[in-house]
């Protein structure tokens, strides 16, 4: 599994530290499922704060938006410098390498915060000290 509970604990702190995310995510409430063939993590965001992480999620656990891709897609998405046209879930979805599913209204009402969240996941995945631009 790429992400474990400790990884998300670190992300929780990274979200709180980020000035942009803190400014724009105040109303961000969503249950986001991250998944590839071998693992799944369900996160719950409340007013932008990462308040719950379940890995693996319990059976029948509801979610709002699922981001699914194989290991190579996640690798490219979260690379410190993503390869061309791998810089976002939308780019990878257009290429057929990831899937974004669920409640589009939730996603698009929180698009800016969601985008920043993924950038912070990239920065966090690259190790401590690397800041998202």
């Amino acid at each position, binding site marked *: 599994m790429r992400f474990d509970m400790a990884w998300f604990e670190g992300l929780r702190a990274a979200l709180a530290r980020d000035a942009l995310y803190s400014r724009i995510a105040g109303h961000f409430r969503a249950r986001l499922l991250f998944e590839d063939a071998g693992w799944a993590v369900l996160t719950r965001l409340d007013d932008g704060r990462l308040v719950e992480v379940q890995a693996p999620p319990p059976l029948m656990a509801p979610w709002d938006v699922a981001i699914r891709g194989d290991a190579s897609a996640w690798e490219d998405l979260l690379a410190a410098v993503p390869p061309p046209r791998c810089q*976002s879930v*939308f780019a990878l979805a257009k290429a057929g390498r990831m899937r974004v599913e669920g409640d589009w209204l939730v996603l698009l009402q929180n698009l800016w915060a969601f985008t920043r969240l993924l950038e912070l996941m990239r920065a966090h995945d690259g190790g401590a000290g690397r800041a998202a631009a």
Partner: protein
Amino acid sequence: MPRLEPIVGRYLHLDFQGQPYRVYFEEAGAGIPLLCLHTAGADGRQFRHLMNDADVAGRFRVIAFDMPWHGKSLPPAGWHLEEYRLTTQWYADFIRAFARALDLDRPVLMGCSMGGKILLQVALDFPEECRALIALEAADHQQPWYNLDWLHHPHTNGSEVCAGVIWDLMAPQSPADLRHEIWWTYAQGGPGVFKGDLYFYRVDSDFRDRVARIDTRRCPLYLLTGEYDFSCTPDDTRRTAAQIPGARITIMERLGHFPMCENPEHFRRYLMPVLDEILTREGRVHR
């Protein structure tokens, strides 16, 4: 002393297809007219770096206008009574009318995204009126990749959705301040305008059946696309160029969908050889 840029902004009153328009444009420099066309849902500010580039403005009169409904160009009277939808023929004819109104002598046209794509129509309609066409992030067709209805929807913040969907099109290496500036300008678009522009870009401009008729002997055509652009991909541009004998194609490394404003310093290493070539063809000294 105040620190002033060389850019000057003015308003042009233009009667077009029986309708009066008040069109805002900016310009800087002197020389061959270089008329710049902004992307969908944006405005001429995207070319501020180019206008402030002495190597360009020293040899070209760089002009960028805000399309009606965009930036400081108001929509025409009665705009509120119908949905805004940009069409291919209206767009090409408007560009031509603007160039004629300013009495531009065979300008070089450079546009990005929808501003680049329309140059394929210009190449078919009135190539002899232009010295060269520089199409950035352009192709004969792009596969739609999201539902446009979300760009203008009562349950979402249209400003943030429009800005949010274009954010990812930029290269991650481009300077953060400039990427955030582009986000900001997209968030300033009028309701439904980005979506209306994309009617041209996605629906009314499938040029796959006609680009092979473009004759680059009548007007040179340059196609430059950033490798990080997943809306108009390098393969889209390669496919297009392969159908047009004489078209010059460049895939630009470390650039996305907005090369002239997401990383202008890096972009100029691709643009300057094109401008130099145009000047050489015109018999002018380039530096």
